[in-house]
C-alpha cells in the first residue's frame, strides 16, 4: 500500500527529473558537437576525451558565476520568471509514457508517472503556462531589447500554439482518447504509427514545435544580431541557466510528445510485421528513448542547416498557412472517421 502509493511514484519522479536534467546538459554538448561537425569543425575537445566532460564544466561555471539583478529591474518578478519558465517544462513529464507496464522485482510497475485521462490536454495547458516566464523576464528586466524579444517570443508562441493544438485535435479524432498511454495503445491495436495516418498533422506539429521552443529557423526571440541576446539578456549565472534548462527541456518535451503521438511511443518499428518480432527483445523504453533522440537530432540538424526566417514571414506562415491547414486537417479527419 505504502510502497505502491508513495515510494514508487516518488522514485519515478526522482528518476525522470534527474534523467531530464542530465539529458539537458548533454543535449548542450551534443548541439555544439553536431553544429561543429556540420561546419567541418571539431567542437569542444578540451574537457575529457572528445569533450564529453564539457557539460560538467559548464554547470560548475554557471553555478559559480555572479548573479546580477539590474538596479531598475522589478526584483520580485525578475527572480520568479526563470522558475515560471522551467517548472512547466519539467512537470509535463508526469504524463509522458516511457513504456508499458513491466514486472520489476516481482512487482507490476508502469513506466510512466501517471496516466491522466486528459493527458494530452494536460500537456497543452501546462505548456501554455511556460510563456509567462518569457514575457515576465523581458518585462521585469526593464530594458529595451529584452522587452522587444519577449514580445516577439510570446506573439510567436501564442500564434503557433493554435496550430499545434488544432493538430492535436485531429490526433484525438484518430485515437479516440486523450490519454497518452491510450494513444500508444490505439496505435498498437490499429497496427500503424499515426505518422502514416496523419502526415500533415505531423508536419504541422513539428514546425509548430520548432517555433514553440524558439529554435532555429524560428529563433527570432534570440536573434543576436537584432536583439543582443534575447529576452534573457539581463540574466546571468544560475538564473540564466534556468532559462537554458527550460529551453532544452522543452525540446525534449516536444520530441517525447511527437514520439508518443506519431511514432507509436514505446512500440517497436513496424508493429504490424510479425517477421520483425525479434525486435521486441529490445526493452520498450529503449525504443521510446531512441525515437525521442531521433527528433532531438533533427532539431539540431535543422538549426545547423536552415537560415532564420524574417519575423513577418514567420507570422504569415503561422496564421495564413499552418492554422488553415490544421483546421482543414481536423475537418478531413472527422469526415474520414465518420464515413469509413
Amino acid at each position, binding site marked *: 500500500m505504502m510502497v505502491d502509493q508513495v515510494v514508487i511514484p516518488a522514485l519515478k519522479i526522482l528518476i525522470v527529473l534527474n534523467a531530464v536534467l542530465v539529458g539537458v546538459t548533454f543535449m548542450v554538448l551534443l548541439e555544439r558537437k553536431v553544429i561543429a561537425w556540420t561546419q567541418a569543425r571539431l567542437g569542444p575537445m578540451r574537457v575529457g576525451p572528445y569533450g564529453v566532460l564539457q557539460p560538467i564544466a559548464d554547470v560548475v561555471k554557471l553555478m559559480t558565476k555572479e548573479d546580477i539583478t539590474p538596479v531598475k529591474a*522589478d526584483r*520580485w*518578478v525578475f527572480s520568479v520568471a526563470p522558475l515560471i519558465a522551467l517548472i512547466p517544462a519539467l512537470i509535463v513529464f508526469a504524463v509522458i509514457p516511457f513504456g508499458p507496464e513491466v514486472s520489476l522485482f516481482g512487482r507490476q510497475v508502469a513506466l510512466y508517472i501517471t496516466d*491522466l*485521462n*486528459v493527458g494530452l*490536454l*494536460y500537456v*497543452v*495547458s*501546462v*505548456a*501554455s*503556462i511556460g*510563456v*509567462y516566464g518569457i*514575457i*515576465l523576464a523581458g*518585462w521585469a528586466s526593464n530594458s529595451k531589447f529584452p*522587452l522587444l524579444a519577449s*514580445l516577439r517570443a*510570446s506573439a510567436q508562441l*501564442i500564434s503557433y500554439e493554435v496550430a499545434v493544438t488544432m493538430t492535436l485535435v485531429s490526433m484525438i479524432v484518430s485515437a479516440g482518447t*486523450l490519454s497518452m498511454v491510450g494513444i500508444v495503445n490505439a496505435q498498437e491495436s490499429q497496427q500503424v504509427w499515426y505518422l502514416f495516418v496523419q502526415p500533415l498533422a505531423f508536419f504541422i506539429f513539428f514546425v509548430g514545435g520548432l517555433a514553440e521552443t524558439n529554435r532555429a529557423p524560428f529563433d527570432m526571440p534570440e536573434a543576436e544580431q537584432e536583439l543582443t541576446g534575447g529576452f534573457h539578456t539581463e540574466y546571468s549565472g544560475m538564473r540564466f541557466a534556468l532559462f537554458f534548462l527550460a529551453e532544452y527541456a522543452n525540446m525534449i518535451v516536444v520530441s517525447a510528445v511527437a514520439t508518443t503521438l506519431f511514432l507509436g511511443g514505446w512500440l517497436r518499428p513496424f508493429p504490424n510485421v510479425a517477421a520483425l518480432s525479434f525486435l521486441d527483445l529490445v526493452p520498450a523504453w529503449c525504443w521510446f528513448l531512441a525515437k525521442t533522440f531521433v527528433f532531438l537530432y533533427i532539431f539540431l540538424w535543422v538549426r545547423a542547416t536552415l537560415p532564420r526566417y524574417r519575423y513577418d514571414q514567420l507570422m504569415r506562415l503561422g496564421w495564413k498557412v499552418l492554422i488553415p491547414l490544421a483546421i482543414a486537417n481536423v475537418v478531413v479527419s472527422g469526415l474520414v472517421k465518420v464515413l469509413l
Partner: protein
Amino acid sequence: MADVITFYTLAALILIFGLLVVTTRNTVHSVLFLVADFLAVAMLYASMNSLFVAAIQVLVYAGGIVVLYLFVVMLVNLKRPPEEVRDPARQTGLGGVLAGVVLAELALIAVANALDPPATDAASSTAGLTEQVGLALYTDYLIPFEVASVLLLVAMVGAIVLARREL
C-alpha cells in the same frame, strides 16, 4: 475530511489571490495574481474530479486570455499609478445596486442549498469526464452552446471591423 481541508484551503487561496488582484498597486503584479487565482480555481476543479474542466481552465484562462491581458498592461505603461480621475459617466449607485443583487442571489442559493442539500448521485464521480462534458454540451445544452458560439463570432467580426477601418 481530506476533501474538506482541500476545499477550504483552495477557497481561501482563491479569495486571497482575488483580493490581491484588486488591491495591488502594480498592474503587472495584479495580472500575475489573477493567473495564480485561475490556477487555484483549476485545482479546485481537479479536486472535484473534473479534470477536463480543470485542464480547459488552465489552457483557456490562465494560458490564453490572461497572456493577452498581460500584453496590454505591459504595453500601456506602467509602474506609475494612474492619476486620480473622476469619470463623469461613473454609475456608482447602479453599481451598488447590481452588487447587492448578486450578493442577494448568492445568499439565496446558499440558504436554499443548506435547507435542501442537492443530491450527490453516484454518476457525479464521472461527471467531469471528457465524454460526459461533450455529450452534455451537444445534446442538453446545444442551444446555449450555439448562442455562445454566435456571440463569439460577433465579437470576432467586431474586432476585425475595428482593427481594419477600410475593408
